[in-house]
């Protein structure tokens, strides 16, 4: 019985793994941040940073006016470990949207313009999930 249950569970999961791999290969010809072909270069306060262009455009597509906190996070190596980040920031006042980019160690969080973003507060929230914030930039969508 146990084997039947496990087989029932595993077969669709493995099929999905193959499906995700095909989708992933189609959209991304690379694994890491070293490939710059699809990256968007933004300048904030004279400092340049990279974002995945397709990913960024998708993220802002439904936003009208917002400020976006772009976080560089260390230790965000697996989906399962990053779940707490999404759960924590979703509770914030003025929260609009979040995107976790595991490949580049980036988290994008969109807030209402009225919210005052405090780096130390964000740093504490990232740490409460067990990761470290190493950089934070804010973009605005007027």
């Amino acid at each position: 019985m146990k084997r039947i249950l496990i087989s029932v569970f595993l077969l669709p999961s493995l099929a999905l793994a193959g499906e995700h791999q095909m989708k992933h290969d189609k959209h991304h010809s690379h694994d890491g941040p070293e490939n710059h072909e699809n990256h968007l270069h933004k300048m904030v306060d004279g400092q340049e940073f990279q974002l995945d262009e397709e990913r960024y455009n998708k993220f802002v597509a439904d936003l009208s006016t917002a400020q976006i906190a772009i976080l560089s996070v260390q230790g965000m190596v697996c989906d399962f470990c990053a779940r707490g980040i999404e759960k924590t920031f979703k509770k914030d006042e003025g929260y609009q949207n979040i995107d976790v980019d595991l490949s580049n160690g980036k988290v994008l969080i969109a807030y209402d313009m009225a919210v005052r973003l405090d780096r130390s507060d964000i740093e504490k929230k990232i740490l409460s999930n067990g990761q470290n914030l190493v950089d934070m930039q804010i973009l605005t969508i007027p």
Partner: protein
Amino acid sequence: MGIRFFILPAILTFALTTALSARPVSYTGGSTVMYFSDELKESVYYHYSPSYRYSLGLEWLKDKVQNKNYAYLRYTHLLNRKNTQTSQRNLYFQSGISSEGIDRNFIGLHGDWETRRLFTSFGLKHVQTDVKDYTEEYIQLGLAPYLGDYGDLHTWILFKAKRNSLTNEWNSYPVLKLFKGNFMVELGYDENDEWDAHLMYRF
């Protein structure tokens, strides 16, 4: 369709077999339910993490060595963590006191290091019982065959070797680990026709 196809069998498996784990401490305020089964025990374990540094929990288990049921009050502490842009390394202290008495307990260490592509871990545990004390140890090496995005189904193929002092033999076998969202399942099957099954749900 895809998500339902994955989650429904997971819930079914979870509900029918009771339930399991990866990280012994969750994020601050996080709860975890696990089911674990191997040749030594079958257990259900719930823990809560007041901080990302430690967790407190209760484990109900069927001890296959002593052939009886009891519970553990468990405490796990993150001793050390090193985050880099591409990796994370952890070392945990684990302990538990049995409902059968304070002299029936266990202590152990668990360590892991992972990148998005590679995973390694080890565990060492000493268990005191009223029949015979024993130790368990294991190592795991794993590879992710593809790198999924956040929210995708993630897959790991692992090699696990474990030993307990009761049989004093190393047993090695492949393990498949899958996770999506808040669900994780880890299954291994060894040459002695024994399943290792771990299921976990984090919330």
